[in-house]
């Protein structure tokens, strides 16, 4: 009963968590723009950036997952409670972007972390990120209803 009620109201306020997997900061600047500048304002969708991975619902991953940061990223990712939705921001997490074939890069990231939504771009436009967050929100709502998670 209580669970049902929580599942109903939770999709109104997904909390975002930004996970930098060795990004060049281009995507991170756009991600900050999406929330901090009133022109784009992702908070209209009820989203809010949070500082702790334990409070997060939607994870925004940017960067090609460098080997130096890989284990830390995986540790932080495992701290995020289920059901979580992963959004890969930019070209790097999927293909490595311009860093592809480098010896320090572990992309594609989906050999470590399941990716639910991809927003291509280098970096993507803030509008495109908002579109991706809206798509992630739908997936998250579905997961809450079905009680599934990305690893299952």
């Amino acid at each position, binding site marked *: 009963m209580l669970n049902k009620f929580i599942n109903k109201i939770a999709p109104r306020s997904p909390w975002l968590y930004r996970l930098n997997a060795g990004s060049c900061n281009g995507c991170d600047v756009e991600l900050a723009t999406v929330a901090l500048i*009133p*022109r*784009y*304002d992702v908070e*209209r*969708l009820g989203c809010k950036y949070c500082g702790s991975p334990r409070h997060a619902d939607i994870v925004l991953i940017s960067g090609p997952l460098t080997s130096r940061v890989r284990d830390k990223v995986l540790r932080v990712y495992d701290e995020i409670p289920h059901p979580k939705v*992963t959004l*890969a921001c930019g*070209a790097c997490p*999927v*293909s*490595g*972007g*311009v860093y*592809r*074939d480098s010896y320090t890069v572990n992309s594609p990231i*989906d050999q470590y972390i*399941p*990716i*639910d*939504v*991809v*927003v*291509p*771009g*280098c970096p*993507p*436009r803030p*509008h*495109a990120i*908002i*579109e*991706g967050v*809206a*798509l992630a929100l739908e*997936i998250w709502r579905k997961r809450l209803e079905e009680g599934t998670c990305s690893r299952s």
Partner: protein
Amino acid sequence: MLPFLKVLARNLRQGPSTDPFPFAPTYTPARFRGRAELDAEQCILCGICRHVCAAGAIQFRAAEDGSGMEFRVWHNSCTYCGLCAHYCPTKAIRMTNDWHLSHKGEDMYSFAETKFVKLGQCAECGATIQPRPAAIVEKLGARYPERFMLCPKCKRETLANHAASRKVIRVEEAR
């Protein structure tokens, strides 16, 4: 005195500065570089786009029956720099201003623009040559358009015949 009154009046007049995007359409600049698009009719398969692509997103694959090449640009590797469109000699590649590219994770390896470019045929013997669209004929073959449509072998034969016939005429004139 009371400078906020000025700000208040301005805000009331202008309305909210927030872009209404997910709920209403937004403004896209006309020259915004979004998804790359290939016009297969214009492509001459020179491969300069693959050569200049910073992210290595462009691939060409030969068809098994040898009738053409498959052009492929993977949007998840593309950096939208527009170099391919800049260097394309026939303007076959174009950067559209379409940025609605977010998609689900299961499609991420197939999210590409795939076009099949057919090879051209020699006008004389029918051997396969690079495609010859009108744009490149105007650029490189404007002086001898018929010769431009031939394969290297037929071109050599035509040139040799041409030179030989001129020599015969000259020899006849000398007599």
